[in-house]
C-alpha cells in the first residue's frame, strides 16, 4: 500500500466547496450562456416532431439512395424506421435524433477550427491532445454531476456531456486529414502563388474532406453511444426507455429501445459513410483526370 503522506480530505473539501461557490455565484450566468444550445436543440426537436412521420422516412430513404445509388441501404433504412414506428418508439427516436444532431452540429462548429489550428501548430497539438484524451476517457458521471449543478438539470447538461464525449474524434481526424494532404500538392499551390487562406480553403480542406467526414461519422456514432448516459441526467428519448427497462427488469422494453438506438446508429453511420466514400471517389477521379 502507498503510505498516507498527506491528508487528502482538506483538498477534497476544497474542491467540493469550490464547486458549491461556483454554483452559488455563477449559476445564472452559466445557465444564460448555455441558452443558445438549448434553443438549438429545442428547435431541432420541435421541427422534427412537427414533420409528418412519412416525410422523415422519405427523406432518410432518399438520402440513403442518393448516397449509395443502390437499393440495399434504402431498404435497410426503411425497415429500421418502420421498426421504430411499430415499437412505439417514434417520439423517443426523434428526441434522440435531435440530441444527436444538435450535439454533432455544435461539435462541428467547435472541432473544425481546433483541428485546423492543431494541424498548423505543433505546440497547439501538444496542448490539445491530452485534453482530448481526457474528454474521451474521463468517466462521464464524474463531470455530469458538476455540470448538472452548474447549468441546472435538464437538456443542457445532457447536450454538453454528449458534445464533450463526441467532439474529440472530429478534432483528431480534422487535424490528421489536413496533415495528410500531399506536400507536393501544397508546394505546387505555393508555386502558383496561392495565399495561405486560399491554400487552406481551396486545397487542404477539400482534399481532407473524406477524413473529416469520417470524423463527423465517428462523432454521430459517439453521440448516439451517449444517449443512455445523457438520459440519466434528464435528456429523455430512447436512452430513457432503456433506463426504465433496466430499472424495472422489463427486458423487452430495454431490448427494443436498445435495438432502436442500434437502428438509428446504422442509418446515420451508413448514410454518412456512403457520402464519404462518394466524395473520396470523386477526389480520386479528379486526380486520375489530371
Amino acid at each position, binding site marked *: 500500500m502507498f503510505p498516507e503522506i498527506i491528508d487528502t480530505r482538506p483538498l477534497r473539501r476544497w474542491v*467540493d466547496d469550490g464547486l458549491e461557490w461556483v454554483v452559488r455565484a455563477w449559476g445564472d450566468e452559466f445557465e444564460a450562456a448555455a441558452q443558445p444550445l438549448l434553443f438549438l436543440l429545442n428547435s431541432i426537436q420541435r421541427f422534427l416532431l412537427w414533420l409528418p412521420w412519412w416525410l422523415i422516412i422519405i427523406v432518410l430513404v432518399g438520402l440513403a439512395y442518393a448516397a449509395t445509388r443502390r437499393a440495399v441501404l434504402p431498404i435497410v433504412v426503411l425497415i429500421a424506421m418502420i421498426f421504430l414506428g411499430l415499437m412505439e418508439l417514434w417520439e423517443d427516436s426523434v428526441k434522440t435524433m435531435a440530441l444527436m444532431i444538435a450535439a454533432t452540429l455544435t461539435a462541428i462548429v467547435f472541432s473544425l477550427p481546433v483541428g485546423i489550428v492543431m494541424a498548423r501548430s505543433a505546440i497547439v497539438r501538444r496542448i490539445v491532445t491530452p485534453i482530448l484524451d481526457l474528454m474521451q476517457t474521463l468517466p462521464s458521471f464524474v463531470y455530469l454531476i458538476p455540470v448538472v449543478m452548474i447549468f441546472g438539470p435538464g437538456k443542457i447538461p445532457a447536450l454538453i456531456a454528449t458534445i464533450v464525449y463526441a467532439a474529440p474524434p472530429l478534432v483528431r481526424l480534422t487535424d490528421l486529414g489536413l496533415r495528410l494532404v500531399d506536400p507536393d500538392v501544397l508546394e505546387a499551390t505555393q508555386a502558383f502563388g496561392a495565399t495561405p487562406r486560399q491554400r487552406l480553403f481551396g486545397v487542404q480542406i477539400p482534399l481532407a474532406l473524406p477524413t473529416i467526414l469520417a470524423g463527423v461519422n465517428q462523432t454521430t456514432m459517439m453521440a448516439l453511444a451517449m444517449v443512455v448516459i445523457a438520459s440519466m441526467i434528464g435528456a429523455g428519448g430512447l436512452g430513457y426507455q432503456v433506463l426504465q427497462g433496466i430499472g424495472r427488469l422489463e427486458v423487452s422494453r430495454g431490448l427494443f429501445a436498445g435495438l432502436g438506438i442500434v437502428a438509428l446508429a446504422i442509418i446515420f453511420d451508413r448514410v454518412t459513410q456512403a457520402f464519404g466514400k462518394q466524395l473520396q471517389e470523386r477526389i480520386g477521379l479528379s486526380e486520375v483526370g489530371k
Partner: protein
Amino acid sequence: MTFKLGGFVAAIGLTAGLMVALPVAAQAAECGTDKTIDIAEMNWPSAAALAHIHAIILEKGFGCSVEIVAGDTVPTSASMLSKGVPALAPELWTGTIQDAWDKGVAEGTVSVAGVAISDGAVEGWWIPTYVAEANPGLKRVEDLPEYWELFKDADDPSQGRFYGCPPGWGCEIINTALFEAFELEDSFNLFSPGSGGNLDAAITRAFVREEPIAFYYWGPTSIMGKYAMTKLEMPAYDEAIHACNADPACEPKGKSAFPTPPVIKGVATWLLGEAPAIADYLKKSTLTNVEISRMLSWGDENKAGARETAENFIATEADLWSQWVPADAAEAIKASM
C-alpha cells in the same frame, strides 16, 4: 417504495463482487456456518454503511467469512430469491418487489430478519423550508398549481417543474399516478431526473442557491440530514388507493400519502437455520432514523466512504452495537479496532 439507482452498475457489481480482505482476528463467538456470507452493499449511503457495519461485526465478532458484494434492490432480491446469495441485504426496500418477496417468504427461500430502521423511513413530496416560510399558503400538494411560477421549468417556462422519481424506481409509477390524481398536468411538468445522482445534484443546486424546488425524496439520507425541507401535505395514506397508484393498469388514480415504506433486513433462510447466533444478532441490530442520519452526516462531513463510516460507527457508538452481540464478541470487535 423507492427502488434505488443504477441497475446496470448493480448487475455488473453483483457478478463481480468485492472481496473484503481483512486478516482474521481472534474470534470469540461461533459463526455457525463455514459458508461465505455475502452481504449486499446497495449503492446508496445508508445501506452501504450498514452493509459494512454488519460485515465488521460478523467477521470480527463472530469469526464468519464475509464478503461484500455490490447490489441494487431488484437484482439483489432476484438473486436472493433464486439462488440464496447474497445471504444478507441489510436495507431492503421491499415496496417495489412486494409480490416476489412475499412469495419467497411463503416458500421459505428468504426471510425477514427484523426491520432495518426501527422508526421507519420517510417518503414524500418536499419543498425547501425557506420556500415554505416565504409562502405560508403553500402547505398541501393541492396548493402547488397556485404557486407554479415559483418552480418555473427552464426547458418549458410556461409550466412549473416537479422533480419526480428516476426511471425504473418503484416510486416513478406512484409519482406519476399522484401527479395525475392531483391534476397537476396543466400547471406542472413531471420532470424525470433520469438517475438518483441527477436528482441529488438538482436538489443540491437549488438549496445552495436558495432557489425554490419541488421534488420527491425519501429518508434516511444524507441530503435529508443536510438540508431543511418541508413535506407537502397529502390526504392520509389509504391502502387501496395506494395499491391502485402502484399498479400502472389500475384506474382511476387517487390521492393518498406514501405509507411508511417497509425497509427490512432481508436474509436467505439458510443463514438463519445454519447460524442461530447470527439470526439472533440480526434481529437485534436495528438503528433509528436519527442514528443513521448522524452516521451519514459524519461520513459526509469527513468525506468518508462506506467502510470508513462503518469503522467510525464501530469505534464511536459501542454503546449501541454492543447490545446486539454477546459480551465476548463485543470484546473481540473492540480488540480488533
